[in-house]
């Protein structure tokens, strides 16, 4: 079969991935640099009988997808910067009530209105801890269009598998870049369908009682099982509870279901990593420059490799330790004041051999920028 090949923006690759994964509901509020996702879905979703709605703000958009998910839809919202801040309250609700949903954040410069039209990767920690209270979260990222497509499909799959919000941390550079996208054929990528209860009407269904494998089968609003969904600590029926054991158990469940499955959730790519003496750890559009530099230096015999992270939360600690252990030094390339580098330092045996190569002026970090940092830590000057 000949594949459909398109020349698209990264944001459009996200839209194609969402539709491939079975997304049938989108609610959003326009904001640069993510707006194209809303615009494209406004055109595409109704063509398939799906729903698009532009809400009055990001709080409403995030709330609307939660309602739609509970009626049985795979749902998406997309935003940037200030909009991501507004969504945090309802992201926490989705964590607590275990509502599968996907939130794409095409990052721009912050804080506040910041730098709407330029690239940044400053929301890494916000994705992890933006909403209040203990919880765990899944966040994926990508550096090119094919991977944006794939990670978007994976985001929907993980949201369904773990009944949790999944954050897609893209950025302005890759979101707006135009490049080739090969649309995978049906069946080429795995698509996880919603797990629904097989219990017939009249049999007690416990919406919050995990099966042996930890998964919780759902029942759509409108079907025969009627149950309560709340953001309060709740029991297996979904009823609010202040019972210490129930609270303790639920919080552990919410964290453990993700933190005990880091290996299953972790996504990454290796570029020239065999025998690498220096390892560049990077992600998103920063990784493009890291890969570019490594390709160039390898051609000259320099043993430089790139570990490209495609999942950031839960943080792939074991992976980092394993891949960076033999390196003389690790250079984390990111466009923020050092958000992932801290976690890399915490993961490795020799944290003092981990350095930051960053750029925070709204310009894409270049291979030359990274090379300068590299030469500095090699004591060789620029």
């Amino acid at each position, binding site marked *: 079969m000949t594949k459909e090949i398109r020349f698209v923006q990264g944001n459009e690759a996200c839209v194609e991935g969402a539709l491939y994964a079975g997304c049938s*509901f989108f*609610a959003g509020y326009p904001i640069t640099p993510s707006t194209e996702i809303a615009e494209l879905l406004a*055109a595409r979703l*109704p*063509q398939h*009988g799906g*729903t698009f*709605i532009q*809400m*009055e*703000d990001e*709080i*409403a*958009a995030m*709330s*609307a*997808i*939660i*309602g*739609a*998910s*509970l*009626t*049985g*839809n795979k*749902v998406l919202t997309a935003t940037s910067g200030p909009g991501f801040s507004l969504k945090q*309250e*309802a992201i926490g*609700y989705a964590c607590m009530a275990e509502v599968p949903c996907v939130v794409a954040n095409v990052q721009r410069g912050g804080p506040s209105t910041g730098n709407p039209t330029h690239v940044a990767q400053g929301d890494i920690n916000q994705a992890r801890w933006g909403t209040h209270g203990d919880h765990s979260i899944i966040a994926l990222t990508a550096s090119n269009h094919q991977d944006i497509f794939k990670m978007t499909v994976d985001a929907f799959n993980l949201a369904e598998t773990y009944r949790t919000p999944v954050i897609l941390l893209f950025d302005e550079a890759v979101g707006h870049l135009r490049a080739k996208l090969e649309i995978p054929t049906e069946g080429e990528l795995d698509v996880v369908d919603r797990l629904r209860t097989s219990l017939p009407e009249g049999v007690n269904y416990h919406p919050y009682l995990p099966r042996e494998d930890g998964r919780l089968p759902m029942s*759509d*609003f*409108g*079907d*025969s099982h*009627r*149950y*309560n*969904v*709340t*953001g*309060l600590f709740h029991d297996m*029926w979904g*009823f*609010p509870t202040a019972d210490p054991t129930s609270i303790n158990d639920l919080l552990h469940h919410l964290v453990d279901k993700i933190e005990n499955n880091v290996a299953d959730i972790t996504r990454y790519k290796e570029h020239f990593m065999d025998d690498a003496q220096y390892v560049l750890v990077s992600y998103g559009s920063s990784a493009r420059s890291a890969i570019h530099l490594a390709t160039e230096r390898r051609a000259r015999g320099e043993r430089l490799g790139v570990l490209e992270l495609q999942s950031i939360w839960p943080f792939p600690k074991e992976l980092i330790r394993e891949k960076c252990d033999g390196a003389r030094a690790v250079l984390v390339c990111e466009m923020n004041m050092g958000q992932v580098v801290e976690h890399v330092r915490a993961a490795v045996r020799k944290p003092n051999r981990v350095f930051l190569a960053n750029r925070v002026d709204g310009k894409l970090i270049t291979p030359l920028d990274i090379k300068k940092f590299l030469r500095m830590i090699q004591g060789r000057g620029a």
Partner: protein
Amino acid sequence: MAVQEYIRERFFPQMWCEGCGHGTILNSLLRAIEDLGIAKSDIVMTSGIGCSARISGYVDFHSLHTMHGRALACATGVKMAKPALNVIVPMGDGDALAIGGNHFIHACRRNIDITAIVMNNRIYGMTGGQYSPLSGVGTMATTAPYSSIDNAFDVAELAKAAGATFVARTTTYHVAEAVTYLKKAIQHKGFSVVEIMTQCPTYYGRKNKKGDAVEMLKWFKESTAKLGSKELENNPSLIARGIFADEDKPEYCSEYNKIIERASRR
């Protein structure tokens, strides 16, 4: 079906104070639903946070107890995703019109087929008696110890101006009236708002020297009058009860269906 059948016994005893008007509203609502004969699985009750919002847990429908102020935004997602469902959204005055005010006017504007009930006790009950956007000038509250200088919204006028196509107001004293309006609101195709003035003897009553629940109900009887009545004409300081709007206008989900048709032809 008996009203009892609509209740989740497991969730009782309920958390409301003795004499709280919220229970009366729950009763009126269940009677309205019983009269209409709607199947339990065809109803989704979505609420926010507040004493009022706890109502959704007590009923044996699909129930979605969300965040403070966000009930209508969540309900919009439910309704758009499955328009066949009856979506009922009970809210407190603070929930609906302070933190949720933006969602409220936009739900009105869309004329989406949702039934909103504003359980107006003119106070923040759950957090212990602070003033709300419906308290009005002169109200005493824990955050207005010298009395409130905040003007109140007129929910009915606000909803009408924002585009709600069914708007009514009544009180917990006027139970039969409440049942009638709730039935009309649920049957209405479009966004409907029923404001029910209700008593919070614990905070509003105590702070404003309105007495116990019985006295507060008497106050509702004496301080309100039917729209179009001589009584109201003679005494405009009375609060009007009645139906303020009942219009037939394009409903949001039906309009969206036309978008689907248009898009599929491309």
